[in-house]
């Protein structure tokens, strides 16, 4: 450490933020120097987004202090942050699609010809000047919605620069970009740092950290676990810091007694929403009585794989068979009736009908069949009996089975889905991110249920971004990388660091 130092561009000291009983940020420190790229690394749910939302005034910290250029400041709203020359590139762009690039950049601080008359020529000239200075090629008169996502992101960066940001925060900026756009962005960020801007960027991709960061702060479970110079570490070291040791309660389980294959996937190809290959010639086999865990960094095809199995997404090529029956081409209800239980990743959107009662949600996969409906007429008594039974068996905490599903906590919503999906004897269970965003008690409950299903001979396909969850539950593990399983092995033969390397680079060799 040198004796004389310029004040830090941005500093967080002892920041703590709680949401109800969950502590999203616990005594977090962050120090960002001007003219550097500072990566904030961590798994999903580690508290990175919470921290930067506090820094940008979107959330208010329960405890702790924020300093800009060495001085303590209050951040009550984004307006305060902008006044302190902090800019943010949001994950969901805060841009108006029908306005032009120039209009979006100057919005709120428009150049005028006096008396509130817009000077759009001046705006366009200013955008062009900034774009040239920072190497962000964009046409100021283009309408925003006509531009590709990567260019729209540049407009967000330009908007911060127009407001003379000294600190630029980017929330998972590469999540929406193609690899080429990512490389371009990383180049732009380096250029900004060279101009003296302090860049804070959130990511969970190690390659990006090693490629451009001057400094990296790693978060896990709401805490900072360390801050280091990427030059002094490698992917393995970062992965170790990011994933950490097992702190999640490990549910005891006996050895698996696997039987015949329940799910057989051969040469599966599936596209993502934009028509790009997401699952690429993937093979997979899940046997009865085992939990097969799929580990991977999000966005490597897990979602598309699950949606293809459950009939929510078209299969481009290959086959998916459950106990020998082909699933491809069948509708979701048919697949459900063929014996595939599904705990969807987005429980609010795909798991429940929030406005309907808990009872209705508990029979959502069977409501049209006896005893819950006869000749098209619903049988409320049968539905209520089943609902009361499931509420008790799965310990769903609710005042009434007639309450709307939206009134439940995240953990109890997940119990409703689990109760519905686990109780009708399906031979295959597909569970995607089954414990995301739910409390520790519910996590343990869901884990116990998954193991109980396995012990009854159900084949369980577990997809999770939580490596701890994969490691503690799985009998066999596959690591997915760019739409393929790069390894399939017994859980006992894989250690955390090895899986981490495979998740991040798809190979055992450090990049």
């Amino acid at each position, binding site marked *: 450490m040198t004796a004389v130092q310029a004040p830090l561009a941005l500093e967080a000291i002892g920041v703590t933020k709680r949401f109800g009983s969950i502590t999203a940020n616990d005594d977090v420190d962050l120090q960002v120097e001007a003219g550097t790229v500072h990566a904030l690394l961590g798994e999903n749910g580690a508290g990175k987004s919470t921290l930067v939302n506090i820094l940008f005034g979107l959330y208010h910290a329960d405890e702790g202090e924020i300093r800009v250029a060495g001085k303590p400041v209050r951040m009550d709203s*984004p*307006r305060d942050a*902008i006044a302190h020359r902090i800019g943010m590139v*949001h994950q969901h*762009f*805060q*841009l*108006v*699609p*029908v*306005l032009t690039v120039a*209009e979006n950049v100057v*919005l*709120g*601080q*428009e150049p*005028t010809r006096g008396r*509130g*008359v*817009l000077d759009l020529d001046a705006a366009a000239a200013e955008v062009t000047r900034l774009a040239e200075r920072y190497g962000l090629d964009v046409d100021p008169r283009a309408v925003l919605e006509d531009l590709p996502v990567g260019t729209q992101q540049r407009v967000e960066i330009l*908007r911060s620069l127009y407001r003379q940001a000294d600190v630029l925060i980017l929330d998972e900026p590469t999540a929406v970009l193609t690899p080429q756009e990512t490389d371009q962005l990383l180049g732009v960020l380096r250029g900004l740092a060279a101009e003296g801007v302090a860049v804070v960027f959130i990511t969970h991709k190690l390659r990006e950290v090693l490629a451009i960061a001057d400094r990296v702060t790693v978060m896990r479970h709401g805490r900072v676990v360390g801050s280091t110079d990427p030059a002094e570490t490698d992917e393995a070291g970062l992965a170790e810091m990011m994933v950490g040791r097992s702190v999640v309660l490990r549910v005891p389980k006996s050895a698996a007694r696997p039987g015949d294959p329940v799910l057989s996937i051969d040469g599966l190809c599936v596209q993502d929403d934009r028509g790009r290959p997401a699952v690429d010639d993937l093979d997979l086999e899940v046997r009865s009585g085992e939990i097969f865990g799929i580990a991977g960094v999000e966005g490597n095809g897990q979602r598309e794989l699950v949606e293809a199995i459950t009939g929510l997404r078209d299969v481009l090529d290959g086959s998916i068979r459950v106990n020998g029956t082909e699933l491809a081409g069948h509708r979701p209800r048919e697949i459900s009736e063929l014996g595939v239980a599904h705990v969807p990743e987005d429980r609010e959107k795909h798991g429940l009908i929030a406005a309907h009662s808990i009872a209705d949600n508990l029979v959502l996969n069977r409501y049209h069949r006896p005893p819950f409906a006869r000749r098209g007429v619903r049988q409320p008594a049968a539905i209520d009996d089943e609902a009361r039974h499931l509420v008790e068996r799965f310990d769903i905490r609710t005042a009434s089975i007639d309450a709307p599903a939206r009134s439940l906590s995240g953990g109890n919503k997940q119990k409703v889905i689990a109760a519905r999906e686990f109780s009708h004897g399906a031979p295959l269970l597909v569970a995607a991110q089954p414990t995301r965003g739910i409390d520790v008690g519910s996590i343990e409950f869901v884990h116990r249920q998954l193991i109980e299903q396995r012990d009854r001979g159900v084949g369980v396909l577990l997809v999770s971004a939580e490596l701890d969850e994969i490691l503690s539950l799985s009998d066999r593990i596959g690591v997915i990388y760019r739409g393929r399983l790069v390894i399939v092995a017994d859980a006992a033969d894989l250690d955390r660091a090895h899986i981490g390397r495979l998740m991040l680079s798809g190979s055992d060799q450090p990049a």
Partner: protein
Amino acid sequence: MTTLAGRLVRYRWWLVVIIGITAFTLFTGDFRLDPTTAILAATLRHSTPLVLGAMCGILSERSGVVNIGIEGQMLMSAFAGFMVASGSQSLLMGVAAGITVGALMGAALAGLSVTLKGDQIIAGTVLNIAAVGLTSFFFTQGRSLPGKTPIIRLGPLADLPVIGKVFFINPPITYVSLLLVVALWYALFRTTWGLHTRAVGEHPSAAETVGISVVRMRYLNLILGGAIAGLAGAYLSLEAVGSFERGMTNGKGFVALAVMIFGRWNPVGAWGAALLFGYTNAIQTQFQFRGWFTDHPQFVGMLPFIVTIIVLAGFVGRARPPASLGQPYDRE
């Protein structure tokens, strides 16, 4: 040049419509100057409350609030304008009262839909029902006005053939409505206020992150829009009819919504659309003069509504409303 030829091709259907309407107008006007001028003048007269109502809708909806209460705002203002004008025997006071009541109705809509975050359709319906009830209950026969707003000749412009009689010999609110069309277009697309209004209607959280108050912009626009609807109401009772009748808006507030959509939320477009609707009304009168369709006047009377249906069915799908229209804004 390619530009002219290109434009001719691009707007060919509009050209067909304009030529068709012109030919039809000349035909119904018996190819004489006076009846033809009369049709055009009546067209402008009938279009005035529609374009004013549509501008009220544009202000509301550009800032993201659905306003189906234009009918109620107009009716209440027509009533207030009439009552104040007949009480004070001052038409100016009456017009001022109409504008004020319209603005208050706009503020009420803002209170219900912005502050209380109520359903905007229901809030607008509340205005409509309240207006019908209140005006019917408090209206008493036997009051009279000191006259109608006077017709003003705009000097030598009024002597121009056809155009002079159509555009430059009119009562005051009609002139104001034409000026408002231009002013509002300029304000929406050339000023910071307009940019903020459009941003708030399209993506309120983006506007908020750059320091624009969504609540303030929506209140401002609803109140301004209400004032314009108030002017439309004053036009009906004080300029067009010279009296008040129960339910005298007769659906014009709803036709104004169709005008707004047909005009693609653009004041100039709305003016063109209002002229089309005004025209369908104007030729009815001419039909009567010519003695056409006198056996079945109801079919001619249907014309404005048939045009409304065709326009809404044909154009609503293509016109794109502001993206956050109808969604109450919540900061969290």
